[in-house]
């Protein structure tokens, strides 16, 4: 049963009165929100806020778990996380995870409140008995209505009509419960078409994954594909000296670039100060020429004979040294250190054909002179390189720019081990090892 009232204040008064008469299934309709109607209708406090709170907390938890799983775990199983170090932060780093947690909290809460509002209101419905009522259209303009549903325990058409009229209701009318009209057919057609169209991009992605294409990739958004930037070792008009690569500012040392410990950084007991290939000059200028010293002079330098205390002598360092050696050194010196790496072999071939320029063959690491070198000297060679006698600009280049400090020392450790393989004495073994061999 529907009745119309004059205005918002009458509506509230009527709602209160109709509740006092014992009706419970009462609904109010007005063109704008009316203050106090909730109280007058004694609407139950809504459940939705609690649902939204739960959804927000869920979003927060999901975000934290997701980030933990993706970036802080790693394993040999399907859909495993991947530990990706970003900006030197720990894999599981709460401050970095808060923005995502914040956003997922809001996302979950917002979707839940929107969809929850629809669901709690029994929507979507394609039809409602009220829509068949001519006068009810005024509820969007200037009509204020009260509705009592037939499910109300006190409902009887006569009683409700009397009740409405006694509190000033006009145009009291009975609504027939028209069943929901079926959803119109074209709706399904349109929905199906939209669904198919929505699948097209996904299908294209799946297709592109399987095949391969000769054409350059499609850049819908170029992101950072084409940047105005200077590449390494190119010329530039921007700077007065015409280089795109910049030299360090005079008198500055890069963070982590201070090299003051002669044992660790030069392989020397103390800095003798006249080594052109060592010290700040070499570290400040990338690709500086290797030292011009004669080999004959080298043994007179105060090389250190023990590894610096910062370097850990362990199986781990040894394995690391082997890896680095095979990557950086073996191409010339050969995997076994005999000076017969692939580059050397090719150079010999070219030399036999008379096509090679001046070429100093790589030293065999098992040569007597090299075996006699202390660790400091080997380290210094790895770091700053070695020129052929007589100061010709051929020979081994320094590797300090390519290999980190710890790795260069690890290579030295591995080279020492390689040398030992050709020079093993029974005295090198401990008593236990001898016993084990026997």
């Amino acid at each position: 049963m529907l009745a119309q009232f004059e205005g918002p204040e009458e509506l509230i008064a009527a709602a209160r009165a109709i509740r006092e008469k014992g009706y419970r299934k009462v609904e109010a309709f007005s063109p704008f929100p009316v203050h106090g109607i909730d109280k007058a209708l004694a609407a139950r406090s809504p459940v939705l806020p609690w649902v939204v709170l739960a959804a927000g907390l869920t979003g927060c938890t999901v975000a934290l778990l997701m980030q933990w799983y993706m970036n802080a775990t790693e394993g040999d199983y399907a859909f495993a996380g991947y530990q990706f170090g970003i900006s030197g932060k720990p894999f599981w780093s709460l401050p970095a995870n808060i923005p995502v947690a914040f956003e997922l909290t809001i996302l979950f809460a917002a979707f839940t409140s929107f969809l929850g509002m629809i669901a709690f209101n029994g929507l979507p419905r394609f039809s409602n008995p009220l829509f068949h009522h001519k006068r009810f259209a005024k509820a969007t303009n200037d009509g204020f209505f009260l509705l009592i549903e037939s499910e109300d325990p006190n409902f009887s058409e006569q009683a409700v009509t009397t009740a409405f009229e006694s509190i000033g209701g006009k145009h009291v009318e009975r609504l027939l419960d028209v069943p929901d009209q079926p959803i119109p057919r074209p709706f399904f057609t349109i929905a199906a078409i939209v669904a198919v169209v929505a699948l097209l991009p996904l299908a294209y992605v799946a297709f592109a994954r399987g095949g391969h294409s000769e054409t350059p990739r499609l850049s819908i958004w170029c992101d950072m594909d084409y940047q105005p930037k200077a590449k390494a070792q190119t010329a530039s008009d921007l700077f007065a000296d015409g280089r795109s690569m910049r030299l360090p500012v005079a008198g500055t040392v890069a963070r982590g670039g201070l090299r003051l410990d002669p044992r660790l950084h030069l392989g020397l007991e103390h800095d003798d100060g006249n080594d052109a290939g060592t010290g700040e000059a070499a570290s400040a200028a990338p690709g500086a020429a290797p030292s011009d010293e004669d080999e004959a002079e080298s043994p007179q330098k105060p090389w250190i004979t023990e590894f610096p205390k910062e370097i850990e002598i362990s199986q781990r360092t040894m394995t690391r040294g082997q890896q680095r050696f095979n990557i950086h050194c073996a191409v010339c010196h050969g995997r076994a250190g005999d000076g017969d790496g692939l580059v050397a072999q090719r150079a010999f071939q070219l030399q036999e054909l008379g096509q090679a320029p001046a070429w100093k063959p790589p030293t065999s690491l098992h040569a007597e002179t090299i075996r006699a070198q202390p660790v400091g000297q080997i380290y210094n060679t790895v770091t700053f390189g070695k020129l052929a006698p007589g100061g010709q600009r051929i020979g081994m280049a320094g590797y300090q720019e390519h290999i980190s400090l710890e790795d260069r020392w690890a290579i030295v450790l591995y080279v020492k081990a390689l040398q030992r393989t050709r020079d093993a004495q029974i005295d090198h073994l401990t008593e236990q090892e001898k016993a084990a061999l026997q």
Partner: protein
Amino acid sequence: MSQTSLYDTWINDTSERRKASPDLRRIAFGPLFGIGALLLVGMWLYSRGDPMPRFWHAYLIAVTYFSSISLGGLFFVVVLHLTGAKWGVVLRRLGEIVSMGIGFCGLLWIPIWASLLGGDGSLYPWNTPGVMTLGAENYDSLLAGKVAFLNAPFFVGRGIFYFLLWFGMARYFFKRSVSQDHASGNGPMEPLRWWSGPAMLFFALSINFASMDWLMTLRPTWYSTIFGVYYFAGSAVAIFALFAVLVWRMQSRGVLTRTITVEHRHDIGKLLFGFTFFWGYIAFSQFLLIWYASIPEEMQWYAVRRITPSSTGISFATAMLFIFHLILPFLGLLSRHVRRQRGILAGWGVYMLVMHWFDLYYIIAPETAGGSLQWPGLPEIAVVLGMGALYAGALLWIAAGHWLVPVRDPWLAESLAFENI
């Protein structure tokens, strides 16, 4: 009931007090100023022997604290005029009175300004004699590069300018609003709407620069572009927290019991909640960018404020602020029922006022010679209580004899009838 009839009923309702007694000056001034002055002078004498200027740090914490409350009040008044918001008209007079306190805060700066002009660098390191003199033993080229901005006369001049600007604005809005109480038309109110636009612009710029001067130059080599907003967010938290407490205190003494309804208190709670989260958003934004880039000249500020546990100072100081200034009040104020309960809301108001003070303590205290954040001690607490007594006395002095609600405001009827949906 229509709004007009509601207003007619209200104006004839004599069951509540709406006017501050002129006797407040006599009653409030003596005891409050006595207690305040006693605490401040006593604390100053007590800590004169300290190797570091602990008293002056405590003083700076207190003076920036009360300045921020008054600035929050000014923001509230100006934003009400700017947006034409009608719900808050019943609270506007309280905001106006609090904003008028900015003049008194300016007076409290005078000792600091005097010491700066006298060449004392113990509070602000850039004022140490020699740091900007080439060839001096403690010459610092980084600071010397900032000499054009960071020198005592300009610093003091800027400070005086800010306070004159703020006091001028507060006084203009207050006087016009008060004269409306006796006016027959809406004459006094009319220009306020227009002036609220430029006023907001000046306010935004000046609070940025002022907080930079007061708080960031304690560590002049530190950079943060968001810092002004951080201080503003704290001010907004402070004013709504103060409103929550003030309304509870006044209503329990029979003042404005009918004028300020549960709906207005609900809105105070919403704004307190919102600005608490805004503060957290800004504070976290500042922290996240600095933490992520981890550049020493930015990170130095957080390095002394502890993110990780330590044996010295407060462990997790930054994380603690995050939890107790953001997460806890966020959860506490989330519910509508909390915001509509006068006592509970006032409890959160007190809590946030304390946390806002701790926030300023967190900003200022580690810049003492110690360089790490210790727990607050007697000087900090005694000074803020002493200055609080002076500040409260000043606010009561301003309020004395005035209506506590703009009785003839054209929008008062709307404000009285305000209801949340």
